[in-house]
């Protein structure tokens, strides 16, 4: 099982990351990847309001990496994945930018689909990142969502964020 976590300001390339995960591992029969991107709106800002201009992402250096590595260990234990790669960007991002990537390899599709969703559900409520939106009116810190706690609870994990 290979796993690696990067917290970085730079963008990333999905094809390169998937190629690296698959390289030289002949057991792999399935790859599942998720990318999260910056939108110009959120749940509280519908199409009728002014769009989000940019977003600043803050994190807790040291803890962030440890938290995600622990999630990967748990995913590997539950689903028997072979390789996991997580990249999360920090700093100033614009709408259309990529924020986060989770890519997973396994023998068959079921394990990869599940592990990828599990990792994103875990990351949303347990990894120490914070988003601050900038809008024409000024903007502010993004509120955590109760629905994200519910998403993690589906996996039998009761760790509340909100």
């Amino acid at each position, binding site marked *: 099982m290979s796993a690696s976590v990067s917290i970085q300001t730079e963008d990333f390339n999905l094809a390169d990351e998937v190629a690296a995960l698959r390289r030289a591992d002949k057991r792999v029969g399935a790859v599942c990847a998720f990318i*999260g991107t910056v939108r110009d709106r959120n749940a509280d800002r519908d199409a009728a309001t002014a769009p989000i201009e940019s977003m600043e992402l803050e994190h*807790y250096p040291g*803890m962030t990496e440890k938290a995600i590595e622990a999630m990967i260990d748990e995913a590997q234990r539950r689903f028997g994945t072979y390789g996991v790669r997580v990249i999360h960007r920090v700093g100033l991002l614009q709408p259309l930018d990529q924020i986060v990537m989770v890519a997973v390899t396994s023998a068959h599709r079921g394990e990869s689909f599940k592990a990828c969703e599990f990792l994103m559900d875990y*990351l949303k409520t347990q990894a*120490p*990142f*914070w988003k601050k939106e900038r809008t024409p009116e000024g903007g502010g810190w993004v509120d955590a969502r109760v629905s994200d706690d519910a998403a993690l609870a589906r996996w039998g994990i009761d760790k509340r964020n*909100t």
Partner: protein
Amino acid sequence: MKVTVKYFASIREALGRGSETVETSAASLAALRDELVARGGAYAQSLARGKAVRVALNQAMSDETAALSEGGEVAFFPPVTGG
């Protein structure tokens, strides 16, 4: 004992600092939070009971019953919003 206390996001902004060394005899994270609230001002506001504040001890999510020890690293921050 001395502990390092870190603050992030809206709490860091409200306090105007990201980190400080605190001399304390607090036995638990809850007691440390109470000491900080007792400072008043921005501390009382941003760490008040009833506010959504999460806490980490030595870079792992924790609950406030956890015991403090010399040289520990505590962090207070709002609910996380990554991904």
